[in-house]
């Protein structure tokens, strides 16, 4: 099985350790990995702000870069949703590009989704010694994901799992939303942080880089020492304690 890694621009630049953790796990499952070097961003910042001409030009490149991929796996539900839902919309009026975007969409998976759907991983072969909570990132909704990641978190050896109140409520990131509606976005981030503090957990699992930046940034501003961790880093054995 050959997997093309789509690391996403945010993980590439801000949290490369997430991508590296994903590499460790996929290799453990005997998956052959390639990293198409031409990849940059999925185009979501332009798409979400309505600048579809720019989004189209970036998305069209993505179609080229991942043209021959068997599977495309990304540590982000948000960027995967962009490929699956956004690309076909961007190319609705171009038959050839639309067909190619549908093909890419059918081959693209979010990492946790891929573990479950393709590699049939049902429980975690890893441990975490500490109190852990979990935030459900919004774009999992768009991918039809429900409790896949939470089930894995619960199955970690040694973990004390504490559910987060309103775990499925948006943390307020929303890409450009965080810049365009800063008061609202910051308020939502703080609301999320307060719920996290209430759990008494030492770390929170968040599986999307944008949300990680938002939640960890809000925790940092308030001087709260709760760690924000992508599940891949626990599953890979890189992180075993807060």
């Amino acid at each position, binding site marked *: 099985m050959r997997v093309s890694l789509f690391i996403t621009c945010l*993980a590439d630049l801000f949290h490369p350790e997430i991508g590296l953790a994903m590499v460790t796990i996929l290799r453990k499952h005997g998956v052959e990995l390639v990293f198409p070097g031409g990849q940059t961003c999925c185009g979501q910042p332009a798409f979400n702000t309505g600048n*579809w001409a720019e989004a189209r030009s970036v998305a069209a490149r993505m179609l080229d870069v991942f043209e021959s991929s068997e599977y495309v796996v990304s540590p982000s539900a948000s960027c995967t949703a962009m490929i699956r839902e956004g690309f076909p919309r961007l190319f609705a009026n171009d038959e050839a590009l639309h067909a190619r975007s549908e093909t890419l969409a059918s081959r693209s998976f979010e990492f946790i989704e891929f573990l479950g759907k393709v590699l049939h991983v049902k429980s975690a072969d890893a441990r975490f010694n500490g109190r852990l909570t979990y935030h459900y990132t*919004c774009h999992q909704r768009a991918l039809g994901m429900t409790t896949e990641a939470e089930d894995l978190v619960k199955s970690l050896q040694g973990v004390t799992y504490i559910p987060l109140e309103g775990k499925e409520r948006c943390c307020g990131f929303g890409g450009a939303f965080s810049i365009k*509606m800063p*008061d609202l976005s910051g308020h939502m981030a703080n609301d999320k942080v307060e719920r996290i503090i209430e759990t008494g957990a030492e770390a929170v699992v968040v599986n999307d880089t944008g949300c990680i930046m*938002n939640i960890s*940034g809000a925790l940092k501003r308030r001087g709260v020492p709760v760690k924000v961790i992508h599940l891949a880093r626990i599953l890979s054995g890189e992180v075993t304690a807060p």
Partner: protein
Amino acid sequence: MNRETELTPRWDFGAATRQSLRNESLAKALFRATAKFDDGRRALMAALPESDLLREKARQIKDDVLQHLDRYLAQFADSVEKAGGIVHWAKTGDDANALVASIARERNVKRIVKAKTMVSEETHLNDALESEGFCVIETDLGEYILQVAGDRPSHIVVPAVHRTKEEIAELFNTSFGVSLPPEPAEITKFARARLREEFANADMGITGANFAAADTGTVIQVTNEGNGRLCATWPPVQVVFMGIEKIIPRLEDLPVFLKLLARSATGQPMTVYTNLITGPRREGEGDGARELHVILIDNGRTAVLGSEYRQSLRCIRCGACLNTCPVYRNVGGHTYGSVYPGPIGSVLSPLYEGRSRFSALPHASSLCGACYQACPMKINIPHMLTAMRAEQAERGDNHVLERLGMRLWALAMRSPLLYRFGGTALRWGMLPLSSEGWVSSLPYPFSGWTKRRDFPLPAKKSFRGSFKE
């Protein structure tokens, strides 16, 4: 589209947001109510094994109606007339208001009681009737409170959700010279007694319609307070004020919608009162209005029907998207500045009240998708919001800095070399602003981020620099 509102200044959603976020009593009232309804909805929908099938069925029925709206409307009008009712057609909100006024004038009506109808908010019916000298009384408790206060609804289903019981008791005490405690039961008892008199003295009742069956001409109206039934049956004349999208093909389709509506709206299995009204009172019947008028209102709906926003016409005004929306829950309905607040309002307001005036609303969402998941009619609100943003950008109605920034960004993202250079430059640019890997103050236009959060410094070595095949 109303030309007048197009010319009025743009709604400053950002400023309204800041003001609402400072209001702590609003936050308390909002959180309590929306959490109760949203949790109730989730619990009841989860307990209904066929809820997904029902939603799909409801979507199909409404899509069929919208596809053949002309035919169904004609059938509905025929059925109403066969049952003895009188049908009126209104192209605009002003036309609709004028029709009500002329019906009232011809019958020498003085006092009008009114059940909750959102379309009458849309057309500003009360203002129109009052300016012609009619006395109009809202009889839904929430609407009544707002009428006494000179306020307007902030929620589609629970219009006074932004007011606490303490505020309402104080409002009644000062307005009516009484001394009510801040107890919902006491407040309600007082309002009920006053409203009884209004029903008894009214010459005309105005109601909305939640649904209208084309095959029988039946108008269906649900309420929890029974005020709708009194408006429909006590005064001698009833006027049904309804948007043309409320049609369902057959009366037998009704259960599909009733099962979804109350569950989605307030987390109830059924509303307390469900009224099915087919024509006026007939010979030998003990109640019902002597005269029934149905006003079918377009007010921009046919334009939406022919657009990419058609699915918004499936909306049954349950408010589930408001209750579940993290934005609405934090800022409340008035922050949207329009008749319809929340996620669906962010679609409807630009469409019906002016794209330019409400150009900020399609951006009042983090696109989290909670609304789409909650919607019993499967309306893909995030899709419509992004489509509206695209429409704005296409006609140049976005910030010049954003346009420029996006062009530069796309240029960099099309070239891996420029992308890598950009990543390095970003790190070096941010390094002097940072301390221990975090930046606590970013320059404009990114300063919004660091108002309440820190921003991480890019990693020393990117993934592409670290990965080995």
